């Protein structure tokens, strides 16, 4: 797996060179700017809104990186023809795919980690000036460690999106891969509707297809615990573990699929 590690490090370095981390500056400006404005606009809900904004921005920025960097992971190598010397080296195609995936995952991990730190810093600054009795009336403390649970599931969510983008990019153009990934992501948000399709449709075939889609497509709503965490609603460790397990299996399935497709591609 040394080859996969080398590929992963190369992907991470490339994302640094491509200024992917510039989004962190934007994130920090957004959070600080909003925290200054919020006190004037929101009737004392600034901490809740900063938490909502921080988590939403972490998820959204990560989503853009996962999709738009993910779809180019393979196609860029092919377009630049750098795939030929690369595959001529002692590296298996499976290692190449896994390395690419882990490299982007590392980039996303740094991204989410820095955003989490920035969010806690802004929340600390906001809470510092608020009297203790007022803080007691909040649904959850400003520096609630449970925010990390939401961050963790955002990261797990991004890991699945990255695997999807990589899977599609092994056989499709970047634009189509982006459309497919976004499409699956959007449908994955509506999974509950697919499950209850029989409530609005009477055709057994359509219901069966909807049910199949419900089980086969990734259920992205599982990873969304942002509201619960912001309002101090407990999220159990078993839920986190089961959701992470579901994501790990789904990612593994996508990576194996990507390896199969990529192994069959002819680069002559």
């Amino acid at each position: 797996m040394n080859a996969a590690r080398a590929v992963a490090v190369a992907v991470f370095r490339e994302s640094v060179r491509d200024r992917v981390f510039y989004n962190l500056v934007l994130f920090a400006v957004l959070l600080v700017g909003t925290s200054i404005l919020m006190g004037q606009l929101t009737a004392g809900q600034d901490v809740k809104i900063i938490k909502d904004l921080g988590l939403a921005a972490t998820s959204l920025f990560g989503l853009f990186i996962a999709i738009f960097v993910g779809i180019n992971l393979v196609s860029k190598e092919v377009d630049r023809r750098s795939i030929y010397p690369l595959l001529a080296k002692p590296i298996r195609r499976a290692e190449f795919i896994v390395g690419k995936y882990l490299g982007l995952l590392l980039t996303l991990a740094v991204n989410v980690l820095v955003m989490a730190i920035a969010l806690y810093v802004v929340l600390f600054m906001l809470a510092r000036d608020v009297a203790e009795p007022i803080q007691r009336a909040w649904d959850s403390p400003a520096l609630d460690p449970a925010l990390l649970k939401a961050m963790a599931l955002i990261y797990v969510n991004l890991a699945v999106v990255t695997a999807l983008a990589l899977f599609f990019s092994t056989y499709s153009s970047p634009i189509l891969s982006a459309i497919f990934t976004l499409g699956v992501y959007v449908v994955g948000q509506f999974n509950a509707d697919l499950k209850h399709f029989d409530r609005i449709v009477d055709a057994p075939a359509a219901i069966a297809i909807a049910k199949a889609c419900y089980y086969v497509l990734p259920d992205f709503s599982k990873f969304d615990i942002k509201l619960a965490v912001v309002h101090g609603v407990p999220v159990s460790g078993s839920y986190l573990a089961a959701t992470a397990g579901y994501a790990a299996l789904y990612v593994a399935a996508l990576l194996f699929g990507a390896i199969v497709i990529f192994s069959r591609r002819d680069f002559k």
Partner: protein
Amino acid sequence: MTRVTAGLASALCLSGAVGLHAAQDRWLPPAVDRPGLLYVRSPEVIKRAALGYNGITADVYWIRALQHFGEERLSQPPHVRSYALLYPLLDLATTLDPYFSIAYRFGSIFLGEPYPGGPGRPDLAIALLRKGIEAQPGKWQYMQDLGFVYYWHLRDYRTAAETFQRAADLPGAPSWLRPLAAVTLAEGGHRAASRALWQQLAQSEEPWLSSSAVLRLSQLDAMDMMDAWRLAKRERGVAPPLPLDPSGTPFVLNAAGDIEVSRDSKLFPVPGQIQPPR
């Protein structure tokens, strides 16, 4: 064209656009009083369209509700105050984020506020709070607020007392809620009982709630002052000089020669002073 020239040209064009934009705002005001628009009114649609970003979308609708309420409340004639979007905005915010406590609690205060200070719709305040109770049945604060709407806006003291009692039965409810239910039932409609209710809320840890309670207490003081003025008028046979209300604004005489809170006062309107347009 050199890079410096292009940069200067870009900056020049941008400042021209900004200047024109500002000039338009100053010298060419909009010809019509544009009504507020809410393109999506279906909570179910917006919930799906939010794509999992429910919390932040709820915040946006909450801020819009605050702005809508503030804009209408501070608007001057010939604009006719209308709070038509207030309930739909609050409904969207609370559907997206069912735990959005302040949207239920502050929202119900906005909705119940008599016209023109608010829409004067205690029925919608009740609907909003009931939605909150359905989402979080154990939240005694919603039940307490519901009791206040029945007490203050609808003068339905029996239902108010029952609601306070139900709030008192919930886990974590403060000890003063149970005697409050008894006082409400025994002395409903009495200003002293009302004052007791607001004094409890004035001690709330939520700044917006305590400031609202302080305003209500000032309104009660103003009502006491008006009663004292009427009594003095009856006893002396002539109208005494008009005093200042607790906010420092002079009381005024209405068309019938009776004392009332001025429209310029921040206490306007006190309960029963004005009815919303139908």
